[in-house]
């Protein structure tokens, strides 16, 4: 017999009989639940839990693992693949974490494929009804430049997840981190998808990112947030910190504001109903991420029976570090309102913007600060951001005049 020529027993009566003859009359084992020894999160062990729990062979010192012994090979210098020292937070049981959305590959990819099909249908419908015709001319520059800049923001946060995916301890956490990263990557690409979509329908609207990148890297409007993203991506090594700073601070504050309070709020005022639609997916992904972050940093870490106090202190310290840079980013960004041409007070007036900032900060305090007992003076934080709109501070004319390099 040679490879490629063998018989498939399932279709060979003789073999079927032979196999039947040696098969046990009764099943030998009654325990048919895979990973039956895993403590389920709910009443019953889910498929997600069965497939994920303890897939990771960690060293036995990784909290909650069931492995015996050490890593067989380590990084130069002697650090293991999934090492406790990759983060300052400590968990008695890293394997207790559950993605609230119970995502394993199949459901995760199915949901994203559905999002893709929905986007495709939306684009076909919107183009065939000529939705783009409603967009006011004044707004298109913002879609070129500022919406384009959002690509970099999302892409930068996405890339901050590479080391977090590598380093994170436990299969449940790692799967969640990777899928959360994938959503961020998708968010960046969907911004560009909309820009390509618009370029097909608007004369002279080029989908390239040249001008957007110039503004992203040089404009004071984005200087603050860009620096935050760069620091997180290139210079933050603790994977817990990366996740907390990305989703519980930077994206919860800056991302939420830019996507919802700025683009989704302002775009329709200029006749653009396309952008809010596209951003609804990214907003959905951010909410999914929020659920996981709250579970991991709240239920699992802040409330860890042994290390809760320690973890709270660490996470508060991270918050102390990332909140100011994020606020500076948003303070810079609100300077953009001064550039909106003929903007109505109803969407761009100071008090309306302030309401938006307050919504975001209040949500942040409720969703994240409270989780770790962080004292947040919401009114003070709002005022700090709003100072970006003060005439003396407001950066002007990024999209309309030549660009000032940051000194």
């Amino acid at each position: 017999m040679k490879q490629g020529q063998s018989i498939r027993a399932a279709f060979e009566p003789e073999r079927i009989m032979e196999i039947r003859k040696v098969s046990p009359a009764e099943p030998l084992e009654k325990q048919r639940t895979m990973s039956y020894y895993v403590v389920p999160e709910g009443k019953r062990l889910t498929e997600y839990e069965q497939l994920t729990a303890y897939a990771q062979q960690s060293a036995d010192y990784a909290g909650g693992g069931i492995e015996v012994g050490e890593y067989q090979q380590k990084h130069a210098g002697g650090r293991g693949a999934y090492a406790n020292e990759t983060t300052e937070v400590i968990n008695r049981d890293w394997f207790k974490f559950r993605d609230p959305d119970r995502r394993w590959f199949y459901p995760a990819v199915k949901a994203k494929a559905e999002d893709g099909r929905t986007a495709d249908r939306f684009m076909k419908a919107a183009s065939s009804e000529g939705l783009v015709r409603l967009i006011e001319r004044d707004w298109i520059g913002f879609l070129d430049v500022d919406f384009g800049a959002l690509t970099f923001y999302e892409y930068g946060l996405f890339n901050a997840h590479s080391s977090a995916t590598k380093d994170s301890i436990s299969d449940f956490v790692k799967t969640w981190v990777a899928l959360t990263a994938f959503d961020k990557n998708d968010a960046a690409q969907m911004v560009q998808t909309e820009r390509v979509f618009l370029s097909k329908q608007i004369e002279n609207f080029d989908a390239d990112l040249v001008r957007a990148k110039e503004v992203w890297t040089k404009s004071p409007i984005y200087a603050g947030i860009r620096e935050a993203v760069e620091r997180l991506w290139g210079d933050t090594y603790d994977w817990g910190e990366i996740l907390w700073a990305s989703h519980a601070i930077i994206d919860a504050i800056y991302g939420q504001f830019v996507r919802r309070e700025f683009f989704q709020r302002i775009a329709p005022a200029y006749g653009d109903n396309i952008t809010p639609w596209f951003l609804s997916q990214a907003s959905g992904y951010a909410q999914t991420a929020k659920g996981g972050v709250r579970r991991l940093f709240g239920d699992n870490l802040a409330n860890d029976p042994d290390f809760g106090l320690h973890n709270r202190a660490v996470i508060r310290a991270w918050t102390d570090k990332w909140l100011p840079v994020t606020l500076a980013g948003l303070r810079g960004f609100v300077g953009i309102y001064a550039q909106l041409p003929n903007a109505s007070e109803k969407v761009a007036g100071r008090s309306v913007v302030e309401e938006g900032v307050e919504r975001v900060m209040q949500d942040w305090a409720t969703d994240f600060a409270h989780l770790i007992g962080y004292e947040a003076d919401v009114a003070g934080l709002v005022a700090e951001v709003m100072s970006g709109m003060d005439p003396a501070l407001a950066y002007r004319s990024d999209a309309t005049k030549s660009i000032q390099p940051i000194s």
Partner: protein
Amino acid sequence: MQSVKPSGHSIMENTKRAVRAPTSVEAQEVHRYLMDFKWEFEKNRTKYGTKYEMANLTKEQFKLTAKEYARMEAIKEERQFGTLLDGLDRLDAANRVHPRWAEAMKVFANFLECGEYNAIAGSALLWDSAQSPEQKNGYLAQVIDEIRHSNQTAYVNHYFSKHGSDAAGHNNPRQLRSVGPAFRGIKRAFGDGFNAGDPVECSINLQLVAEACYTNPLIVALTEWAATNGDEITPTVFTSIQTDEMRHMANGYQTIVSVINDPKAKLHLNTDLNNAFWTQTKYFTPILGYLFEYFSRYKVEPWYKTWNRWVYEDWAGIWLGRLAKYGVTSPPSLREAKQDAVWSHHDVAILAYALWPLHHWRHELPDEVDMAWFEENYPGWYDRYGRIYDEWRKLGFEDPKSGFLPSAWLIENGYIPYVDHVSGVPFCPKLAKGACDLRILERNGRRYAFSDTYGEQQFLLEPERYEAQDFLTQFEGWELSEVIRAGGGLRSDGKTMIAQPHLRSDNMWTIDDIQRIGMKIPNPLKMH
């Protein structure tokens, strides 16, 4: 610096096209901007130490966006789960698998899952290290793929647990493997080898060797051995996994392309390749041959033939040939590997039989039909191994009342087993017909055994990377039944063992049968 284009607002000298034609955006139309998603900044660097420099402009071959990826993969998943849960279920496919082979899948599915899982982190390490956005994108897709494969291989155990005739071992391999002597090797090759090291070294292990070299003998051969033994479940899953592997092999190729213009690459690449090839081969070669040939009623072809075709001719010849223009040469360890491809799985098999109580599978000794096949294809097999199996059978290998443990017999007869410190693979110098050269080294009061110089060299250069205790040292002095209990090695009745030295439903060994023997785990390193 390029000239500043007209400001955003002046673009407004445009006209919106009044054409109301349905239009959408293809993945490629977005992907072509991917290289522009990056901007330069001072601290943009990888967080993991590497000897190499990855180029900025490396492109990827498969140009996927997240949405396009999801579209393609969701279709594959629908097909695969449809086949498993609808088609194969109705045919009662799990009970049409030869019981011997169903045992092999307890091992295959879980050990490969270990590789798939660790490839998630391995690909993430590369995503972090690559500088080019396209290259990052290729590695990212692999991160997500490996989640898929990890779930899929797990699903094979899940499926057999639920539908097969012996769920034990399918239902808890992640628990029981951790005390098993066979798992350490996979932890090294498919685990840490993929993600604990220089990113380029990891890429060579994962993509250039494990995937480009061993995926074919593994997946093509595995599906065929499975089907010929009545298993249609495994091919359903593994051929679906295989459809992602082209992208992973391309990633490995791109890793080499991306570093090759860096003059330092010339210094390290071939050494890293040789180490990676040996690391992977040292485990892959024996374990695959062992599982194929010793767990099948119906054989496909001798393992060394498959190995020669895919590893020696296809990979070392053609695949590495494509990289020759970059100065990549075929690994010197290929010579020993070729010898190992004939004998190392037999060397490992006899030790696996000897240690049967510690596994998460049942395993019967080769019968007359097997023995004839082995002798025909591996002349000299009977004299070295077959006669020992016959002797063991006579001494009561299968009988729970016999008090016979083959591991004790080995030691009593001077066949001392060791564990190779770097690969984690057990070996017995006196029995081995494959490449084997026992070396014992003492360092800081600890003793280490090695079965070859390649591993020893790796250890001597960076001992801090190989600190793990081997299985025998770790459990030294434990009474065998204690280890089995600690690893969760009992069936749901609380006394019958998961591991068995035969496949019958009667006369199964219980933990009491083992305890009665009172065997204490020895440390052969102390016998020197």
